[in-house]
């Protein structure tokens, strides 16, 4: 006979304001099998927990129902309290009276009635609960960092410096990411590459970091502490051991007119190329889509000129399999291109450029060697207009969010322009200036007050070309929406920051969730900003939302600490809420018929074949078997099994059925 204790929490006023907690406790005391029932102001407090512990000891409780908040909040607290009192922690269940009842309903009898219903179904369920033990799994103390931008670099260095191994993969030929493209950085105007390249070199030289550039994640299996990742190392058509990085091939390559990704299309690169002079590793790759040999079958000039015979035309993609314990995702962001804006010329005006293109124009390593020259005719623009919120904060464009970094980099751009073109005039159209951050507001004021940038609050409705000028039609909303027309030589659009290409696909490979804009979702917006909902996978930088450099770096260090915490243990304990295939007495052995449809249904590859053999080793039957280390307890196999041979421990068919009946039957 069950002896169940019911503990109803007021949660201050969170529950008791709309639910009559005393009445819930009193009603519960009359249910079959309930030996003890009480309400208390804060069940999670020390005295509240003592109440549970002493009731277990004094009444000899066999099961506990805590009617309080969401199990996501306090289930571990109450399970631990039960365990301390000698009860198996999995004999404790939580009825969610707060999120599921008091917060969503008004005060009244019906609300209290619903609360009693919630308690009753758990009382009935707990009668079928069985003692379960935690599962222990080992931890592979190697981290996989995806993305070699500043976030990925920082995370890799921090993890590596704690003494653990790191594998860093980057899809481009060099690490560095968007930060390597920037000219100067706000709010200090120090050179981006000058502060970034030492970190890039450190990554390459760190004994704990294995760097795979030109590589992408092919697949990921497993779970926290025990992931198996397949990495596709795209063929560089190069023997990296022989290549000395002399760069002769890149100068001799006849296919030279390929728009350079690093220069955002403002410059060209050859088919065999190093993206930029400080690239790490500083060794070229052949772009097979543009290379004459791969497209037309003739050329091989790079092979002929290479002094070390390092070119390998027949090299194939390599799949590397690695075992890792944790992942940091730092795949960064992208920006909308100018063709996204019909009102600003569909991207067909060459002198309407993106913020990232302006960075390249302003950069000493850029196509104009740091001189601000317009792409169409190379003239120095005398009038330049910057448009903030190009796409961002515009629900009509499907991007209602603020891209966050634009206000600051536009101030920086205008400032750099004024520093380089003393006679020039610069205008900034903005909606609001969002300069929250240390020294940020001061920086923007400097642009306006010291450098004389004209800030106009208003939006631009149209840009069109006329006599070699770009006519910018806007309005000044601080002057009663007075129409403004500027004849500009160049326009810079601070286009919206968006999720990187392939973010959705990667999220599906990793089994992590993402928001409607395809940015990866954190586990909790405030308290778990670097965790994902998949244990062991962490986020860093702008793959989660648009972020500036200091934020990306601190987030990366945060993620690195999470990884280090994980790696500080030799074993992990996991909840035993996993699927189990039943076993029966011979001759059936199990009701499983071995159709193995569950194998393909399982999203975690946790189901394998088990062969039941007799004493002579002859096969009697093949049945499904769930690997307890891999199973995440999602229940897909349970729903799939036609013979109902699989149960989730703690959520068995019998427990679920009992819960339903408890709701339907009159008491």
């Amino acid at each position, binding site marked *: 006979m069950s002896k169940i204790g019911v503990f109803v929490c007021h949660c201050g006023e969170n529950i008791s304001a709309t639910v009559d907690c005393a009445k819930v406790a009193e009603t519960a005391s009359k249910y079959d099998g309930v030996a003890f029932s009480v309400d208390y102001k804060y069940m999670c407090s020390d005295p509240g927990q003592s109440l549970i512990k002493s009731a277990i000891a004094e009444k000899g409780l066999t099961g506990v129902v805590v009617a309080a908040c969401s199990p996501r909040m306090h289930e571990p607290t109450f399970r631990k309290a039960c365990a301390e009192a000698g009860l198996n922690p999995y004999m404790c269940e939580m009825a969610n009276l707060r999120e599921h009842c008091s917060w969503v309903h008004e005060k009244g009898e019906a609300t209290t009635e619903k609360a009693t219903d919630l308690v009753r179904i758990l009382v009935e369920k707990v009668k079928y609960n069985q003692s379960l033990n935690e599962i222990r799994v080992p931890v592979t103390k190697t981290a996989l960092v995806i993305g070699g931008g500043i976030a990925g670099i920082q995370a890799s260095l921090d993890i590596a410096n704690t003494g653990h191994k790191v594998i860093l993969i980057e899809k481009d030929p060099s690490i560095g990411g968007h930060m390597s493209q920037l000219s100067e950085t706000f709010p200090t105007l120090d050179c981006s590459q000058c502060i970034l390249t030492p970190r890039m070199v450190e990554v390459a030289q760190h004994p704990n970091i294995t760097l795979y550039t030109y590589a992408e994640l092919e697949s990921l299996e497993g779970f926290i502490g025990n992931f198996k990742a397949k990495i596709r190392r795209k063929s560089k058509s190069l023997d990296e051991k022989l290549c000395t990085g002399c760069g002769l091939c890149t100068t001799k390559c006849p296919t030279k007119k390929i728009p350079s990704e690093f220069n955002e299309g403002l410059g060209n690169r050859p088919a065999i190329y190093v993206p930029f002079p400080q690239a790490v590793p500083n060794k070229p790759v052949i772009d097979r889509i543009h290379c004459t040999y791969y497209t037309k079958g003739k050329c091989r000039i790079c092979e002929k000129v290479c002094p070390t015979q390092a070119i390998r035309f027949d090299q194939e993609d390599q799949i590397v399999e690695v075992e890792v314990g944790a992942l940091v995702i730092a795949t960064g962001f992208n920006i909308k291109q100018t063709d996204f804006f019909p009102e600003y010329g569909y991207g067909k005006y060459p002198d309407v450029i993106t913020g990232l293109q302006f960075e390249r124009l302003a950069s000493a390593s850029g196509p104009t060697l740091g001189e601000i020259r317009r792409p169409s005719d190379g003239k120095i623009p005398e009038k330049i207009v910057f448009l903030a919120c190009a796409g961002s904060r515009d629900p009509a464009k499907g991007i209602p969010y603020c891209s966050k970094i634009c206000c600051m980099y536009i101030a920086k751009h205008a400032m750099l322009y004024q520093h380089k073109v003393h006679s020039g005039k610069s205008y900034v159209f903005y909606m609001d200036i969002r300069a929250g951050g240390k020294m940020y507001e001061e920086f923007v004021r400097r642009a306006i007050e010291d450098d004389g940038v004209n800030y106009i609050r208003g939006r631009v409705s149209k840009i069109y070309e006329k006599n070699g000028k770009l006519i910018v039609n806007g309005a000044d909303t601080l002057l009663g929406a007075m129409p403004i027309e500027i004849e500009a030589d160049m326009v810079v659009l601070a286009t919206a920051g968006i999720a990187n290409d392939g973010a959705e*696909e990667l999220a599906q490979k990793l089994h992590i969730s993402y928001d409607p804009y395809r940015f990866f979702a954190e586990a909790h917006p405030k308290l778990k900003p670097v965790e994902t909902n998949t244990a062991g996978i962490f986020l860093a930088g702008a793959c989660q939302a648009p972020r500036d450099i200091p934020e990306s770096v601190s987030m990366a260090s945060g993620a690195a600490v999470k990884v280090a915490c994980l790696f500080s243990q030799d074993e992990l304990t996991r909840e035993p809420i996993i699927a189990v295939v039943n076993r029966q007495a011979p001759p059936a052995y199990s*009701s499983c*018929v071995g159709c193995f*449809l569950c194998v*393909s249904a399982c999203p975690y590859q946790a189901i394998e074949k088990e062969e039941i053999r007799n004493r002579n080793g002859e096969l009697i039957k*093949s049945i499904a078997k769930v690997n307890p280390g891999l199973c995440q307890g999602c229940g897909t196999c349970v729903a799939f099994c*036609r*013979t109902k041979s699989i149960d989730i421990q703690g959520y068995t068919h019998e427990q679920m059925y009992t819960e339903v009946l408890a709701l339907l039957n009159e008491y």
Partner: protein
Amino acid sequence: MDDLRKRAKELLETSAVKVVIGYEQGTANKTRALFVEKAEDADCLIFDSRCVQNLATYVTKREVKDKGKMAITATLPVMRSIIQLASEFQVNDNNLLVLGITPESKLVEFKNLSEVETFVHQYQIEIDAKNKEMLDKIAKMTQAERWKFWIDELSPCFKCYACRAACPMCYCHRCTVDFNQPQWIPVPSHELGNLEWHIMRAIHLTGRCIDCDACYNACPLAIPINLLTKRMLEDVKINFGSYQPSIKADHLMSTYKPDDKENFIQ
């Protein structure tokens, strides 16, 4: 079908197989399943247009399987069933030899199941005009009319489970309805209980049913339960392209692909 008898005899005489599953003359001008274990009994084997029972239902039965390697007289639907069973690991080359009968009533013997698969794939599964018309008619009904139609059709069902016994895909030792701790699907044959059983059956057969109509042929009340599975077959075709049982391919209902249509979420 002299070649069939001759081949069966040879197979049994040489002990290449232990049992040949085929048809024999039954009572009331009907045919029934025959399990030939002795070469001399092979003369009882017949094959004609009356032989529509899906014999594949026997190859998963322990009583038959335990005899040793089986040979089976297999018409096109039977071969399709066998391929589906092979994909679910219920039969394999070691325990089954297929004596195929083509739609032109010619005997073909296959070396292995993958040859059977190739043969089967020459023919698309098509729903005949009469049934298609009925499906369209049901699809055009209002929700209330459709509900009434199925309640009327299914309420006479007294759950003899002949449909289950006749279906080669219903090989589970413990069917969902036999699972009684807890009893999710009610056993008594009342209207809703009948509905639950037949819907459950149709769902379990989705992506597996090869449209042999054995369930309908077995039903003593001639309830058109095959319309349910046919409808699922149509849905499978619409959502996943033409359907063919396949030994190695992923199962339709248990696999997810990023480009799967999600038009069921409306």
